[in-house]
């Protein structure tokens, strides 16, 4: 959490994350090139680099895409999410190495500009086996570039989280382009069943995890709440909310996190102002609701970040009646203080 511009707000966890990332990528590239040079002694250095960087980028993109749903399914994976954007930037860099060396290898010896050659040399769009797969990879790289370039909080803040999230959903378009790039490129010339099976397993894993996470999320959205009275909705039982944690309910299509702490109940929007993280899956730490994704904090009574931070989320009026929490579904303006309901002082409801 930061209230002023910094290139990267380094901390211990980010350093460990990046050391593991760089070590892992370096080991992969070294092993890939070493083993390939041994198995295919006639392959050129450029070919080995193209293959090593391309496969590393493709693998890393799979990991990036699996982290989100894994965290929805099991909070144990949350540490992977913390610095996921660095994984994305490294994916782009590896893809860029793959592309630059490939363009030099295949498009720089003619009289055309290499980029023009890349985009115009094959235009057989009607044939699946001869499809111009290189253009697909290039388009995916352009998308990854925009995502890497706007991955900083500076852009998140200026574009606003909904626009930024929408832009970064293009990663799925990039992934689709790369699956087709691999299928119509590498898998056309390399007939090893291992490569085809590996691509299939990767695709199956990404899709299965996302579908499983979506089904889990849909249960919260589709859960029917109790009847309304005096403008309040019967949301949940007090016993459903763990201490210093929340239960999430869906009101009018938006999610609300109901927190129980120190004998009190408060309800705030479930959506973190930083990257739309799920506040209701966080805990109350040092008196503040703490987002499980990047640690942004909000006071449960008014939904405002403690000074000097300025983020604010909507709050909701609550009541406790006969051991159940009732909520007024009309959100208060972000940062509006709402007196917490005290557990043990049940109010009447007509």
């Amino acid at each position, binding site marked *: 959490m930061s209230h002023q511009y910094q290139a990267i707000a380094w901390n211990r966890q980010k350093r460990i994350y990046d050391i593991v990332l760089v070590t892992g990528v370096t080991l992969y590239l070294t092993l890939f090139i070493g083993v390939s040079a041994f198995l295919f002694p006639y392959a050129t250095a450029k070919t080995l680099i*193209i293959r090593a960087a391309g496969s590393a980028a493709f693998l890393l993109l799979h990991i990036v895409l699996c982290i989100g749903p894994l965290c929805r399914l099991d909070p144990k994976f949350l540490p992977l999410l913390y610095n996921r954007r660095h994984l994305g930037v490294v994916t782009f860099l590896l893809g860029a190495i793959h592309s630059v060396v490939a363009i030099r290898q295949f498009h720089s010896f003619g009289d055309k500009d290499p980029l023009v050659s890349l985009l115009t040399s094959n235009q057989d769009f009607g044939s699946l086996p001869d499809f111009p797969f290189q253009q697909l990879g290039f388009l995916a790289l352009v998308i990854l570039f925009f995502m890497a370039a706007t991955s900083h909080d500076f852009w998140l803040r200026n574009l606003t989280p909904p626009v930024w999230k929408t832009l970064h959903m293009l990663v799925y378009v990039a992934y689709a382009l790369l699956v087709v790039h691999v299928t119509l*490129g590498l898998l*056309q010339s390399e007939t090893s069943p291992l490569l085809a099976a590996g691509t299939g397993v990767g695709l199956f894993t990404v899709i299965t995890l996302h579908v499983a996470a*979506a089904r889990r999320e849909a249960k919260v959205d589709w859960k029917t709440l109790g009847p309304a009275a005096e403008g309040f909705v019967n949301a949940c039982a007090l016993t459903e909310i763990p201490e210093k944690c929340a239960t999430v309910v869906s009101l009018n299509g*938006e999610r609300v996190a109901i927190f129980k702490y120190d004998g009190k109940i408060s309800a705030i929007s479930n959506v973190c102002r930083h990257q*739309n993280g799920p506040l209701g899956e966080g805990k109350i730490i040092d008196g503040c609701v703490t987002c499980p994704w990047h640690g942004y904090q909000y006071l449960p009574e008014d939904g405002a970040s403690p000074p000097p931070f300025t983020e604010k989320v909507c709050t909701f009026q609550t009541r406790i009646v006969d051991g159940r929490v009732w909520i007024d579904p009309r959100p208060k303006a972000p940062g509006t203080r709402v007196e917490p309901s005290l557990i043990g002082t049940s109010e009447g409801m007509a």
Partner: protein
Amino acid sequence: MIQPLRKIHRRIFFVLALLLPALLLGGIALRYSWPTPNQSGNSSARPLLSGATP
């Protein structure tokens, strides 16, 4: 605020879940039969695709 994004996300994955496996299987099924070492004299063998690494 976030529900429209969730809906877009669900739709994207619904399309990808149908489209990508079909493209992967179609791409593999329709690929050319590349010459194996004992068929090196086959004159009908196609040249390497542009960009394919030998």
